[in-house]
């Protein structure tokens, strides 16, 4: 548990509270009764850092493509770098991959400074560049063998083919594969050296929903294999589905960062539990008396703001205890699109720069 001291924004009284990293604790001012929340930031240890980026900047003439960003990617986690097209995602990841030169800032991969030790790092990372296309006239297996033989340390190609569910395609030419299969081969290529960190730059762009879902499964499987994944994407559902940690980049700056729950709690409106066709007009009052932020929606429905999933059960037990009947319940959670909209005033899908 961590002790934290805060000042009431209303009466300026100093208050103290305790919580665990990642918690959001409700606090009522003992001086004026003002309600508020205290967030306990998740601790990020550089000892477990796969990637450490500090004050990274990239300038093209008058354009600041990446503006003094810092973040850490933990070993064994999927880190999603989310933002609209042109936000600076690929510029950032390509600076980390040493494909682009940074204007300023430091990048460490597995504690090694890439400016001086990138050759050592090469054997430990696997990369799927944006819009990557492999050699058209090599089969899937030949493609993987080709790339694997350009490393000193290699993984078993057949086991990668199995893991990526590419057995039926192993003898097909790369050019004859569908877009989704090509991307899966791209992910497979990034694994041929059994890397510790895998960089996937927009791996599902242009794919249909079914193919995208299949690639997601493959990426999720990487975490189970102990890989650290750095994923850039402009699909918020991709980040929501896959990521352990999300950084949202907009106009070259990181505007929000954390786990999905942290982002929703900090920037979103939490989850809304909707009681459909509530039988009692007193339901709102009863819920309010029990500390819930509830309001009637006019059509017999009651909406309750839920910050922790455990509170859903509390609501249901209150309704049962008070003998309040209802047709059904519906829970809707804030998503990254809403968070992006709230922070930037623009929709993620429409904010291409």
């Amino acid at each position, binding site marked *: 548990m961590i002790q934290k001291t805060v000042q009431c924004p209303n009466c300026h009284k100093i208050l103290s509270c305790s919580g665990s990293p990642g918690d959001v604790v409700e606090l009522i001012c003992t001086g004026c009764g003002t309600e508020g929340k205290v967030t306990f930031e998740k601790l990020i240890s550089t000892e477990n850092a796969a990637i450490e980026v500090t004050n990274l900047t990239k300038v093209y003439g008058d354009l600041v493509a990446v503006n003094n960003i810092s973040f850490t990617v933990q070993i064994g986690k999927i880190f999603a770098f989310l933002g609209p097209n042109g936000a600076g995602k690929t510029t950032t990841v390509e600076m980390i991959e*040493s494909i682009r*030169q940074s204007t300023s800032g430091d990048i460490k991969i597995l504690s090694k400074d890439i400016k001086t030790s990138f050759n050592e790092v090469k054997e430990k990372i696997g*990369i799927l560049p944006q819009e990557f296309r492999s050699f058209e006239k090599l089969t899937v297996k030949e493609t993987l063998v080709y790339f694997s033989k350009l*490393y000193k340390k290699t993984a078993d190609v057949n086991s990668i083919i199995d893991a990526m569910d590419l057995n039926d395609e192993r003898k097909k030419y790369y050019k004859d594969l569908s877009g989704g299969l090509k991307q899966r081969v791209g992910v497979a290529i990034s694994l041929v050296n059994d890397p510790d960190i895998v960089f996937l730059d927009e791996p599902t762009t242009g794919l249909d929903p079914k193919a995208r879902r299949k690639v997601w499964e493959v990426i999720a499987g990487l975490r189970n294999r102990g890989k650290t994944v750095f994923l850039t994407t402009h699909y918020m559902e991709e980040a929501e589905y896959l990521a352990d940690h999300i950084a949202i980049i907009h106009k070259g700056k990181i505007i929000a960062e954390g786990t999905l729950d942290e982002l929703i709690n900090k920037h979103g409106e939490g989850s809304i539990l909707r009681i459909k066709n509530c039988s009692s007009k007193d339901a709102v009052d009863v819920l309010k008396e029990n500390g819930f932020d509830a309001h009637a929606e006019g059509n017999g429905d009651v909406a309750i703001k839920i910050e922790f999933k455990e509170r859903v059960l509390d609501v249901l037990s209150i309704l049962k205890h008070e003998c309040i009947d209802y047709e059904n319940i519906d829970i809707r959670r804030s998503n990254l699109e809403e968070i992006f909209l709230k922070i930037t005033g623009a929709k993620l899908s429409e904010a291409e720069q």
Partner: protein
Amino acid sequence: MNFRFILHDLHANIKTWLRSPGTVFWTVLFPVLLILIFGAIFSGGDEAEFNIVVQDLDNTTLSEEFVANLNNTSLLNVIELETGKNVTEFMHDEDEPVALVIPKGFNDSMVEYIESQYNPTIEFDDTNLPFNLTLYFDPSDQTTTSILRSILASVIYQLNMNITGGETIIGINEESSVGEDFDYIDFFLPGMIGFTIMTSCVYGSIERNTKYRKDGILRKLLTMPITRAEWILSKMLFMLFLSFVSTLVILIVGILKWEVSIKINIFFFLLIIATSFLFSGIGMIIGRFVKDQETADMAGGAITFPMMFLAGTFIPLEIMPGYMQSIAQVLPLYYVNEGMRNAMIYADIDKSLFFSAFVLVFATVFFMVGILLTKWKED
């Protein structure tokens, strides 16, 4: 330098090349088709290709030998015109575009000049120089006229050189570069080898620099242990492989179909290797500055097409207008073509060495610049 990486990459390149019928066609079958077509057109028979009307007003031994030497060049068919006939009327009636008139006194003037060279007591009036032969031509038939004028200029130049050098006056058969021992196919085959190496290396290099960049393969390789030097060396070995394959095919067709006599020597191999490096370097330079495949192909065409026609691949440089010959002197393919001819056909060691040295210099410059400009990193 990791040679395992290089050989592995080379193996993959050859494998993908063999699986691409289009590229195999352009590298192997296209030059074969060109050889067969051009060979059939220009090596169809023993007859001379161009008629020239000659009226000998001097009618001496010297003038007759001059006419005979014109006739001995395999490119000319001399039609002798009697002295009493009107030249221009004959040209018009017989539809002959070019006629040469040897003036009366040609022999005497020559003898007088030669004697004056050996005996200083004999005075010779320099104002009589040069001994003009009158050339009539039809301006409406520029193509034949210009070819015949160029051939004549070449023959007369040779004659003048011999006279002023004190050697045999008429020495065309012995000294002419358009000797009767060689057919058009002997001229064309080395040019075809140079042209094929040029196109496969220029386009091959451009493709690898633009397509691989567009497809993210260069970005991928940048993050892998293989170095840029290893990758470029591997690609060069692949270009060399293509060059030797296409050269071999051209030689086989030339020998089997046209019975071309090939002289294999060190200059022949040196030129193939240097030419591959030279045009790969040019391709690398183009590939650095153009971003997409379509523009790259156009840029490649803009470089190779003019060279193909101006560097003496299909048509002897001697029959081109003077200004075009000057242009050819600055084109790398000209030195490749001439080097190849002198190495593998004429077996002229001195000229082989001369042209090979030029090709080596070109190759070194362009390849080094190509390497310096080829970069994997993005800005």
